């Protein structure tokens, strides 16, 4: 029979049918059958240097394209190393399929070499997971995994494959349909609710669009822009939604929340209507929930019914895909556009108020003559990339400054670990994005702490000659933790000084990657230009002022309008 094949080959055939062109992985004993198939197969396998980074790279690939990212690891330690990357993808709703090897079905549960209960461990780390014990189930499982990962609210799906299933031989019959009777996809949005939303929008005097990652996932950024312009509403975009409106769009205020701008947070506090689109009222956005947007009625559009009413009750819930709901809303709004005049005077006053807040306390970069301010670094990256680059980040101060000062033209250009806040995300995510977009400029903006979690991946970059630019915002501290110790623990700095940071010129040289340290503000622009001009990878260590804090800041437990706008002013000592 011509279609008699091994489980491993069947797996790869199914991956091809799903349009997979690239797998980020690390081989091991039980996945050997898969690698034997990949030996002469056109699917590209990228040998990453740590499985956690395989998951992050798959996430970078998925976040930058919207397509499913695939990672692969062996049983036991390979699978457990994936866990952080899976949770990151779950928190940020990223479509990732993870394939893990498992010990043979007969050995499962016997504490065999490199055995771990991957199915059990990853149950709460994934949108769904599978342990395939019969080869005949394999094709359906692979297609289901891709379907689940990429539809509805996207997320990671793991397939655990025992070695005897990968090695077993069976006739391959391509699966033509997926049947998941319990997978409830609600995409359209309730027509009556959408009609009420249009009414609420015209009735409001101080509307505010609050949009996030759901707009990126659904690809509804054009519709979002149209909505904002049609209603002439101010808009804030969450960390996950940056780029859904061009960074220089006049209606875009900034990111709201803990490190959002004064104007964004004041708008949230004073709005009488929140048009919440693909957002989850995360605690980093809302501050103290009981004081969040106290005057606002809430229209909440989300594809995941669990998000509706989870943190903030919705006055008007709409369960659906923004890409399906917004066009209907826009049609209704266009048909009733004459309504716009009803509240025109109040709307003009609202805009005047917002402009006044923006002028009162703008997101102001800080510059200095004798040291490089981290904000200065971000402003320069913004100026030199003109909103065109794909920028990844880790988590912490540098991430917040990048989000405040780097503007993006489109969604899927700003990739960071938002929900989980995983350090060591930036570099592997940049690797994934660069594989997806070989010709685009991909920059990993990372902290000196997170960078040191990613050092092994310099080998992946070198081996593949990936032109990823790594820019280290190096303040010598775990900056955000230091900031909290500084502000809330009496500056008792403990375990935050990152002493022993390597010399990046020598480190880069060890991998054949050019590296440079820049310390003087007047050299910053030249150094960045040199890095971006370099056709290959580049490692730039930017020594920024060590004790800069991110402002504005809403302290944990405070309301959005209780922002701390800047460091306490020095009081002159009387003579």
């Amino acid at each position: 029979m011509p279609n008699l094949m091994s489980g491993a080959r069947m797996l790869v055939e199914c991956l091809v049918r799903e349009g997979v062109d690239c797998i980020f992985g690390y081989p091991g004993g039980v996945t050997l059958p898969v690698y034997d198939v990949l030996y002469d197969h056109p699917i590209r396998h990228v040998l990453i240097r740590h499985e956690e980074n395989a998951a992050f790279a798959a996430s970078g690939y998925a976040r930058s394209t919207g397509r499913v990212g695939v990672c692969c690891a062996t049983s036991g330690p390979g699978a457990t190393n994936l866990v952080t990357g899976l949770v990151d993808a779950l928190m940020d709703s990223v479509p990732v399929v993870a394939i893990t090897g498992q010990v043979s079905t007969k050995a499962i549960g016997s504490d065999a070499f490199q055995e771990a209960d991957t199915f059990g461990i990853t149950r709460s780390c994934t949108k769904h997971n599978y342990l395939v014990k019969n080869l005949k189930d394999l094709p359906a499982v692979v297609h289901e995994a891709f379907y689940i990962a990429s539809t509805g609210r996207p997320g990671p799906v793991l397939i655990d494959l025992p070695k005897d299933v990968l090695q077993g031989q069976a006739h391959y019959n391509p699966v033509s349909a997926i049947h998941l009777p319990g997978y409830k996809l609600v995409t359209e949005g309730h027509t009556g609710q959408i009609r009420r939303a249009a009414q609420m929008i015209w009735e409001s005097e101080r509307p505010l669009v609050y949009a996030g990652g759901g707009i990126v996932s659904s690809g509804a950024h054009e519709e979002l822009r149209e909505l904002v312009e049609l209603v002439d509403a101010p808009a804030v975009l969450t960390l996950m939604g940056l780029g859904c409106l061009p960074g220089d769009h006049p209606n875009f205020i900034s990111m709201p929340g803990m490190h959002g701008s004064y104007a964004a947070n004041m708008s949230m506090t004073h709005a009488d209507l929140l048009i919440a689109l693909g957002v989850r009222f995360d605690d980093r956005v809302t501050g103290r929930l009981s004081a969040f947007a106290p005057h606002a009625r809430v229209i909440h559009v989300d594809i995941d019914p669990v998000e509706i009413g989870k943190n903030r009750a919705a006055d008007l819930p709409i369960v659906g895909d923004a890409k399906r709901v917004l066009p209907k809303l826009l049609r209704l709004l266009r048909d009733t556009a004459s309504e716009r005049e009803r509240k025109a005077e109040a709307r003009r006053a609202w805009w005047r108020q917002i402009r006044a807040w923006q002028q009162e306390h703008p997101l102001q970069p800080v510059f200095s003559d004798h040291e490089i301010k981290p904000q200065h670094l971000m402003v320069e990256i913004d100026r030199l990339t003109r909103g065109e680059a794909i920028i990844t980040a880790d988590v912490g101060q540098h991430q917040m400054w990048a989000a405040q000062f780097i503007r993006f033209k489109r969604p899927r250009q700003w990739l960071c670990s938002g929900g989980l806040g995983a350090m060591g995300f930036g570099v592997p995510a940049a690797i994934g994005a660069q594989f997806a977009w070989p010709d685009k400029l991909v920059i990993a903006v990372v902290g000196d702490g997170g960078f040191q979690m990613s050092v092994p991946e310099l080998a992946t970059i070198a081996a593949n000659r990936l032109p990823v630019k790594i820019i280290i915002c190096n303040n010598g501290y775990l900056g955000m933790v230091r900031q909290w110790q500084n502000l809330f623990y009496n500056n008792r700095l403990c375990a935050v000084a990152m002493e022993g940071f390597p010399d990046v010129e020598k480190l880069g040289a060890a991998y054949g990657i050019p590296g440079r340290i820049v310390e003087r503000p007047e050299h910053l622009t030249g150094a960045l230009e040199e890095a971006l001009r370099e056709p290959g990878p580049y490692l730039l260590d930017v020594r920024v002022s060590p004790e800069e804090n991110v402002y504005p800041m809403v302290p944990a437990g405070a309301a959005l309008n209780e922002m701390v706008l800047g460091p306490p002013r020095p009081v002159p000592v009387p003579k």
Partner: protein
Amino acid sequence: MLQVISLLVENKPGALMRITGVLSARGYNIESLTVARTLDPTLSRMTIVVDVDPTLRRQVIKQMNRLINVLQASDLTEERAVAREMVLLRVRAPLESRTAILKEAEIFSARVVDSSVEGFVLEASGDPEKLDEFIDVMRAYGEIEVTRSGIVAVSLESRRLRLSPPVPTGRAEREESAPRLSDVAS
């Protein structure tokens, strides 16, 4: 407050773990859980009694409904529903109290399923509170050993089961015919 949740789930390995995971992730303790196959052997019906913060009840049910193995999760706590439980009770019965025990069992419609010189094993079923009383009464006769089944419940209102139809395999085919279910106002 105790909450009664009824679930219709796919009879697959791991399904139980996913459902209890929704509860254990929030640190809720399960009071009772019953599960058995339905007429369709690929499905199971599950009844869970759990102490959930009332403000989070809807949230927990929604999280269960989000699970791919769950066809339907519904909250029977405040619905018209019938709840029943069974108990198997071993009671030591010396000669002088045997008649009294049997009399008492009769009042609660309990049946004797085993009798020996040491005592009886009684089987009773019905309303869970009634069973509490039965157990209390039997305690008066000395040492008892109790095994309860946990509650099984059924809603008195039939509810429409909405199942997702099959979809074609492969990315390109799917994008053509993605399922477009319309939403009921949530």
